[in-house]
């Protein structure tokens, strides 16, 4: 662990060396570059994601924070003309190693998207889909239980328990997003990636999701991309600031927001640009 953590000083963000490993880094990205065709979207990002914490990525639009997030479960593979270089280690394994099966990786690293995207199926089938394709439930009763547990963890059970067979697309936006979170945790991932999960929701639904993120932190490692600095401050323990495809600064959330070390970070969090 310690050895794999030695980094090129050029790319080291302002962070005390080794502290991440001490806290138990779940994911370690090293010199990660992403190209979309000719466009160099992510430049040499080296960053640790700690286990059992919420890490938020902030930065202006087009800064590469979502791109980096999608590197962590290889969702970028589905985009034509996208190339990823560098290494991303999860529990000491390079997830871009050809030996790694991307399907199994994504079962370990769940994802929630900006716009709620429930499948046009029933609420029950939405949650049961993941366990079904991965064969997690031995019988119907187990599957039922998984669905109920996931909905409960996502704080949605009380609202939908009487209409498990109605379509998931019929729920409100906030409920749909919680359904998507329930769907993601149904396959019991280790990491949950959230790509601006609240940007399509109203303040009340947002508050519920934020509360949920805080509860989920106990069992899952969470990475969240957000445009709202208040949200980053509220839900995350660590914050990384991206700008123009580069990781500018990463540190404890409190430190980033009260005492940023980099001029750009300070400019962004005080609202001078972005």
């Amino acid at each position, binding site marked *: 662990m310690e050895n794999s953590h030695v980094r090129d000083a050029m790319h080291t963000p302002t962070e005390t060396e080794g502290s991440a490993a001490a806290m138990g880094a779940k994911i370690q990205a090293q010199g990660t570059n992403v190209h979309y065709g000719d466009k160099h979207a992510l430049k040499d990002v080296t960053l640790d994601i700690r286990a059992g914490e919420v890490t938020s990525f902030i930065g202006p639009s087009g800064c590469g924070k979502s791109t980096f997030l999608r590197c962590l479960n290889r969702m970028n593979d589905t985009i034509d003309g996208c190339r990823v270089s560098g290494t991303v280690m999860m529990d000491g394994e390079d997830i871009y190693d050809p030996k790694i099966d991307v399907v199994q990786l*994504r079962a370990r690293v769940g994802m929630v998207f900006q716009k709620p995207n429930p499948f046009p199926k029933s609420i029950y089938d939405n949650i049961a889909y993941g366990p079904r394709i991965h064969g997690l439930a031995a019988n119907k009763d187990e599957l039922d239980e998984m669905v109920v547990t996931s909905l409960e963890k996502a704080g949605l059970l009380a609202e939908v328990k009487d209409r498990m067979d109605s379509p998931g697309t019929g729920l409100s936006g906030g409920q749909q997003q919680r359904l998507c979170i329930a*769907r*993601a945790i149904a396959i019991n991932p280790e990491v949950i990636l959230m790509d601006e999960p609240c940007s399509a929701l109203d303040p009340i639904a947002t508050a519920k999701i934020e509360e949920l993120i805080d509860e989920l932190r106990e069992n899952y490692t969470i990475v969240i991309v957000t445009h709202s600095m208040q949200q980053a401050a509220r839900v995350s323990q660590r914050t990384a600031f991206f700008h123009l495809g580069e990781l500018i600064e990463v540190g404890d959330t409190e430190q980033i927001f009260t005492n940023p070390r980099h001029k750009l970070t300070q400019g962004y969090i005080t609202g001078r640009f972005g």
Partner: protein
Amino acid sequence: MPFSFLLLVLAGLAVISYRFGTARARAVAPGRQSQLHSRPMYHGLYAAMWCGVPALLIATLWVAFQPLLVKGLVMGGLPDAYQALPEARLNLVWNDIRNLAIGDVVRAQPAPEIQAAADTFHRLYAIGNSALALLCLVLAIAGASFALRRVSLTLRARNQVEKVITVFLIASSMVAILTTVGIVLSLLFESLRFFTKVPPLEFLFGLHWSPQTALRADQVGSSGSFGAVPLFTGTLLISLIAMCVAVPVGLMSAIYMSEYAHRKFRAIAKPMLEILAGIPTVVYGFFAALTVAPFIRRFGEGMGLSVASESALAAGLVMGVMIIPFVSSISDDVINAVPQAMRDGAYALGATKSETIRNVIVPAALPGIVGGVLLAVSRAIGETMIVVMAAGLAANLTFNPLDAVTTVTVQIVTLLTGDQEFDSAKTLAAFALGLVLFCVTLALNVFALHVVRKYREQYE
């Protein structure tokens, strides 16, 4: 003045009024065009409309009713001896008069009263045409000057022009609707005539089709029987075979094109696939009759089966190939319309590509795919040329795809081609068959559109 020349003159006048209209509008507000309610162009169009539209309407009505009027006047002027003739003979006389007047081939020596009537005919037409020309010109000029006089700062020329354009658009859309209504009505009335000769129940549920009727009373054994069930089963059989080919192939190719194929391959392959839809059906027809049918026959004989040289299988297979583009093109569009978010959602749960397609994309696209398939079915049912050439004419009541069968469309073709009298049950049967066909395809289309619309509501 010939009618075409009159139209040309009217168009010229309209252009001139347009010019005058714009010029006048500019003159009304020199240098301060923003004070005009409507831009000068609209004043020009307004004048052109007043110039052209009334004159054109009158001209159209005139041309439509002039022959009737002339006929009435000419025939009314004939001596009483002619007036007393029966309807059919009177029409012959009228033909003589007209031919004589136009200078067409006529009987050797026209009677003097016929000659006189022809002269009257000629004279009436000459008067009518001149009057029409004069009336049109007067109307055009009056309309234009009326419009030009009204040009002012406050004239709402734009609103008027837009209103006329709306009317024109409505009229255009009515053409298609009225044509449909007309076709339906003609089908309906002819079918009703048929059903007075053959009871509807016998037609819809009879098991024997042999539409040869006796032309003369003394002919034997040709009473004709109009049980259309063999035709329905034939149509059903061939459509079924066609769908068995088209649906899997079309759907699979659509899935490959939209999900797996590289963008460059898709850019070439999709238009090539759609070329299939551009091949004339008659070409498919002789492909089916000359290539596929003999092949199936040889193949079947090799396996010890007896295959008719014109078989439902050959027609169905080729028809299936023909409608592949319908299924694949619509399915491809629908699959592409499934939001990327659906795919992302499934991939993020660790679904493989094929799981994503089977469990998420196809179910989400299913209503649209079904819509496409139903459109293809109605196309298959209505298809004529391939079955005429490859499926044969024998109205066998069979579900064996190796037999010759016949379809509703083929029978309509054979009933109506050649010299036919249009009051026998034989020819009228074609209209009844057409009506059935129309009802079935209409129902399918309505259902398909409904399904497609339901799908659209889901995502937009």
